[in-house]
């Protein structure tokens, strides 16, 4: 939740003209998590799409396929242990990224969003400036 608020305030609100697009996938990871707990006011930017993913399809897929992503701007490679899905995480892609079997053009990814926010901020600024 802190990661969502931070992304809204530090990435999107401070870069209102950036042509970035954001897809946020929400799912249950903690006891008590539920779709009804989702707070719509955390990430309100018009460039953001939200989805609920009850079966954790995306989180499971990214956890399984992390090794194939090969981020071009580094990262510490830390991912959640003893978890069945990648969560509280970001994945940032460049303008030329395409998705065939797996997505190309990964700039960086990080777990958790707050722990890796310095890298995300640096790479986000690189991505939006690099036209």
């Amino acid at each position, binding site marked *: 939740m802190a990661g969502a608020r931070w992304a809204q305030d530090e990435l999107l609100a401070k870069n209102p003209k950036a042509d970035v*697009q954001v897809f946020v996938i929400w799912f249950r*990871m903690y006891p008590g998590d539920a779709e009804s707990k989702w707070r719509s006011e955390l990430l309100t930017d018009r460039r953001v799409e939200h989805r609920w993913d009850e079966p954790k399809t995306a989180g499971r*897929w990214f956890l399984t396929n992390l090794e194939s992503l090969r981020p071009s701007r580094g990262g510490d490679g830390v991912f959640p242990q003893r978890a069945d899905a990648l*969560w509280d995480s*970001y994945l940032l892609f460049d303008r*030329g990224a*395409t998705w065939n079997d797996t*997505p190309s053009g990964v700039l960086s990814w990080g777990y958790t969003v707050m722990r890796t926010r310095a890298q995300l901020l640096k790479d986000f600024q690189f991505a939006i400036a690099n036209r």
Partner: protein
Amino acid sequence: MKSLRSIVAMIALAVLAVPHAAPAGTTLSQLRGMQELKSWFNTFNGHPRLILLLSPT
């Protein structure tokens, strides 16, 4: 006049039949699998893209 009433009734029925979207930001749509994410991703080729995987609490 009768045909005008029929037209109005048909329009009203058509409007009622259209599913109404919930107010933005109040409900979440379900992710329709990885294919939906992949489609979104490729639709915005040419833009930087950020995917966030989050839990609500």
